[in-house]
């Protein structure tokens, strides 16, 4: 998987990983890796600027919690973030369908 292609969609991947239940950064990366069956194996450090950017934009909120003796920053998706994810999903589905048609591939 091309790293740039992945980076361009990182915000959406993070929102999707968090929309069902809140999690800290380490879990977010694990969820992205698991959901992509190990294909999206990004440099873990790159997730933090994206998490902070989404938080600053109001798409995520965070709180500090002590879990298993360690302070962790837990992120959850705000209503604004849910709207953004819905928009991203629609855009991606449209893009994906049109791209598949355009290049003559097969839908998954």
């Amino acid at each position, binding site marked *: 998987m091309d790293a740039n292609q992945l980076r361009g969609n990182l915000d959406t991947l993070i929102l999707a990983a968090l929309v069902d239940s809140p999690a800290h950064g380490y879990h977010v990366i694990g969820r992205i890796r698991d959901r992509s069956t190990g294909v999206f194996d990004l440099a*873990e450090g790159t997730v933090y600027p994206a998490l902070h950017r989404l938080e600053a934009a109001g798409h995520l909120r965070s709180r500090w919690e002590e879990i298993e003796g360690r302070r962790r920053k837990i992120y959850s998706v705000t209503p604004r973030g849910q709207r953004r994810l819905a928009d991203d999903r629609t855009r991606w589905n449209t893009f994906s369908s049109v791209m598949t048609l355009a290049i003559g591939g097969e839908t998954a």
Partner: protein
Amino acid sequence: MNVDDPRGGSSEPIEDYLDQLLLTLTGSPRNVRHTLAEVESHLRDSAEAARRDGLDEIAAERLAVERMGSSLGVRDDTRLGRLLPLARRRRIVLVTLFLGAVGGIAIGVAGAIAGVARIVGGDRAIASPFPSGSYSAADCRRWMHLYPKAPDCVTAMTIDHAADFLRNCAVAAFGGVLSALAFLWLRRRWHEREVAIALPSSFEDLAVAVLSALVVVATMAQAADSFLVTKGVGAWQWVSLAIAAAATCLFFAVRLVHRLGRPRLSWVG
């Protein structure tokens, strides 16, 4: 960096990574602390998972760091790029105020030394009269009017020059104090890491040390000239400035050496 791992490399990869990350991160001190805590927690989780998979402690930490990627990746470059020019301007303002504060206060100290020299050696210790023929009768009348108890024009002129020098020193000291207050106030307002890293952390110390060393050389040359040419008349004006500049140079040079031996991120103070 810790290098006591028998296989070579660091024995504390996570600690080293966090040290490196601290030097890279930008933003408010709170954001930096939170990001560090967040990343450390992540690395410890990752290392723990690797240990569960059978790696020893150092190998597990090393793998966690490797998976995290470069510390530069954790930094938000867009924000840094946007803030750096502003931060650099702010840092230059702070440096200027700092130099003004140190310079003004040092001149004030020189004025105090010159004041003592004047008490001990009289007005001629810190001021010299103009050469004869270089002032008019009107100048003489003005000086005699200002200092009516002076026995002659040359004495009145010397008193006036000595008073001028001390007054100028007092004004410089006042300016230095104002500059110091402005510096402290702005430093508190601009307490962002971007400002701290916009110039090397010991830049101010280096600038003050170099400038004051130049002042020492120039003023000592003037003092030597006074002692040799005018038999010490007015020499303490230069000697007092040289003493204050030398003390300033010494203080900041020592501080600079001390700080270079102990790298730190904060700036002046």
